[in-house]
């Protein structure tokens, strides 16, 4: 039963990935991306990785979709038709995929208790964390305490993303991005604070 569910979910993933590639309407692409994330969240849940599934559903299907829709509002929702036949990229992708599949042949069988991953630090976490950390969710113990340094790095990465986005697309509307035509005409969307920004921007430039 579990196997049937997982195969169905994987097939759905493949179908939505192919649909993502074929569709030219970017609005549909963004929506399909959200569906892809939700299906992978379901797949993670069936693999008993509920914390990962939760993150995937919240970040992948939730916030990313909203941010991509915000981007579409800026760039329009129709992809340009492709003129060249991408034969070389197809070749590279096939070779890389083949090598990756070849690599999986050497991997230990999925879910086998004798796998190396279950004999490194995992037994210590499972045996010691109930009285060393004392909280029932072992994922939280590992994430926040045993691997607290990594989690601090991840938090810093998120903060760095904020800094990068603010530096790239700025703190709100940038008057210099608006072309002369729309700048001259009285635009209903331009609030008073947008106009106040202009002299300071020009003083910087």
């Amino acid at each position: 039963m579990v196997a049937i569910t997982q195969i169905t979910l994987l097939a759905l993933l493949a179908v939505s990935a192919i649909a993502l590639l074929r569709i030219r309407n970017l609005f549909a692409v963004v929506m399909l991306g959200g569906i892809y994330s939700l299906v992978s969240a379901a797949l993670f849940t069936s693999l008993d990785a509920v914390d990962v599934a939760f993150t995937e559903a919240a970040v992948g299907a939730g916030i990313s979709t909203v941010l991509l829709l915000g981007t579409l509002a800026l760039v329009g929702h129709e992809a340009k038709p492709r003129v060249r036949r991408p034969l070389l990229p197809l070749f590279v992708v096939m070779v890389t995929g083949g090598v990756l599949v070849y690599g999986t042949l050497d991997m230990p069988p999925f879910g086998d208790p004798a796998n190396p991953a279950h004999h490194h630090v995992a037994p210590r976490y499972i045996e010691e964390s109930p009285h060393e950390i004392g909280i029932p969710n072992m994922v939280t113990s590992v994430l926040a305490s045993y691997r607290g340094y990594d989690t601090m790095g991840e938090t810093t990465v998120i903060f760095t993303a904020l800094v990068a986005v603010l530096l790239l697309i700025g703190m709100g509307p940038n008057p210099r991005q608006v072309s002369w035509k729309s700048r001259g005409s009285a635009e209903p969307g331009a609030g008073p604070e947008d106009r106040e920004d202009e002299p300071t921007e020009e003083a910087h430039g």
Partner: protein
Amino acid sequence: MDDRIILRVGAKILIPYILLFALYVQFHGDYGPGGGFQAGVIFAAGFVLYALVYGLGNAKKVMPPAVVHTCGALGVMIFAGVGFVTMGLGGVFLDYGVLAHDPEHGQHYGILLVEFGVLVTVFGVMVSLFYAFAGRRRVET
């Protein structure tokens, strides 16, 4: 969106529960799935929904950009600050055991604090990113 009354009333009903659910995910992270990352995103989703329904201007009045930018940095400072406090108390960086008499309680306090730091950063960054994208006008060509 002034005329979409179903959307406005629906969002008004939903938003408090979204925020409450985020806090549940945050503080129940010790016992079930969840934690600072997920809670931060869900908390931010409440404000994103508000901005989508009631407009960006109103959302910026409720949650000013300066506040969310500060949140983005503050969370990392809380996380690293816990590390420095444990160093000051004689432990190593991020060794929460020294935070209380009983090392197990110390671990509890440490995990709560750093998860709160993660929540604050993720919330601040997600809302800031949304403001940054939604606050721009389309480039006319």
